[in-house]
């Protein structure tokens, strides 16, 4: 199992489109994927889950991955956070 801390950098936060990017990216991997925020945990493969995080710009999230391809998944997911989902920061 690995954990990775990421920050929401885009201005609009994890709204529908970034949430769908996260879920679609995660779906490419076999590992389990959870996101922790303020003691709250959601399934990172669920778009509803990601949206209900209501994570705004500046929010710090912990990605928790567990499974055979956890390292690749962590890199891929951390990267889209870093890119701010291709949106205005």
């Amino acid at each position, binding site marked *: 199992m690995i954990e990775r801390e990421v920050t929401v950098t885009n201005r*609009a936060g994890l709204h529908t*489109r970034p949430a769908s990017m996260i*879920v*679609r990216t995660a779906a490419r991997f076999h590992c389990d994927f959870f996101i922790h925020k303020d003691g709250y945990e959601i399934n990172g493969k669920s*778009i*509803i889950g990601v*949206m*209900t995080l209501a994570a705004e710009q500046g929010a710090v999230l912990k990605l928790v991955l567990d499974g055979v391809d956890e390292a690749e998944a962590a890199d891929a997911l951390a990267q889209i956070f870093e890119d701010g989902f*291709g949106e*205005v920061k």
Partner: protein
Amino acid sequence: MTDLRARERVFDGIAVSPGITIGPAYVHAREAIEVEERILEPDLVEQEVASLHEAIERSERDLNKIIAVTREKLGEDSAEIFEAQRLMLFDDAVRGEAERCIRRDRFEASYALHRVMQRHRKILEASGNDYFRERAHDLQDVEDRIIRHLRRGRLISAVDPSHIVVSENLTAADIILFSRRGILGCAMDYGGLTSHVSIMARSLGVPAVVSLHGLAGSISTGDVLVLDGLRGRVVVNPDDATLEAYRKRKDRFERLRAEEKSLVHLEPETIDGHRVRLEANLELRDEVSFVAEYGAQGIGLFRTEMLFLVEGRLSVSEEDQFRIYQAVVSAVAPAPVTLRVLDLGGDKLLPVAHREHNPFLGWRGIRVLLDKPDLLMPQLKAILRASAFGNVRILIPMVTDVGEVRQVRALLARAREELRSEGRAFADNVPVGVMVEVPSVALLADRFAAESDFFSIGTNDLTQYALAVDRGNDLVSKLFRDLHPAVLHLVRKTLEAAKRRGIPVSVCGELAANLRAVPILVGMGVDTLSMSPVYLPGVKRVIRSMSKEEGQLLAREALESDDADEVAARLDRWLEEHGCGVPFLVDSRNGH
């Protein structure tokens, strides 16, 4: 229900897609789905799970259609919100949880789904952020869609093809599905000329009127309606005289429409040989085919907001923008294309919660872009790059101060520098023009003319700012008169300053497509009229029926009048006498 003796009632709104249609109403209520707690017999549980799965699959098929049409008409970005809804259908937090709830509690599928979605919505609604609170609507959309399929009272099949759909607020997705059922027209309580759904209605050729405040709540399915998508009016329970009048009006409109094909290839020239340019207002890349189809001489206004009007997403890369602009510019070259830089704010609400107490006097148009060069620079560079492929002009929206024009020019100089160092091609001397939509620009038009290569008059905003009237506000909307002498004086002042400097002036607001205004604008010396392509042939007919001198005379009368209604009535008579009008036969009784 419909009372045979029901009184005729008139609702005025904004015409967004032309056409006249008469037929029964179908009232589409988005919130009307109610679910009740019902416990299933144990042996029905598996059947209920199967129904849920089937409803989800049907919902997916709906969304696939919506995604395909949205992608084709509005582009990939706009389809993303529906892609997200499609993901939700198969989300374990939706399908899986609802299924478990059916099995565990023996709830009916719709109630199980409702419970599950309600829980997710509560979490979003508890968020302190407006944006996330509003996303609860997306969940509601998904829930409604699935439940409609569960009940087989399917949203779409409930609409009989020969109905006029009436709703408080339709989405672009709704109108796509409705238009496939061949509805007669569409009337909405909210919305404006440039809202998504209006653009979609025009693009699909569905007659539509929006901003009808209170219509949906005050009629029932089956009530007879007249929908007038030319003047923006809906008549409920029309009496025999009104029906007769509208049948004539409809015939007249359809005859004029049929003749219009022959006008496409004719010059927009007055009988005394004065030429006016007629150009198209577009917002979607695939609307480019309308330029040839309706005989436009260029694109007088390409609104770029549609590229950006994606949920929360304000950055479309320079490359993506360039590809779209290049496609549009090359498609019509050597005809000119006026690309207006992003005009967000005001009614075109920024997607991210940026609530202002008075958005029309707030952060909009160029004010936003100058504060956010990370939005403006890629756009300027993309437009400059497209200039290598044809005839491009840049238009700046919501200017109030000459300094803003200078700032944009400075940024343009920087954009050229950057492109040069990147080895990119672009045309020299791409003209830069100013939207005249705030009275300050018209009043100081001399000074703006010295800094601009052309003017483009946006009549809707100019009218709203000059008369201090919000057309969306029922209490004062009657005071919104775009032929008001005060507005015409601002137009004249703009034209005079432009003539002195030798720069061209176009009118790209709704006024350009208002047949009554055409003789006046041509008479005052406007060089170009730009409008939604469907209106072009009708306007050309007016131009070809008038002389410049006649126009000058009408303009003088209008400028000297102190009564906008009188001006309108005078012009209606003129149109009628010249065989150009679709007379409003029922007007005398209904007030204005």
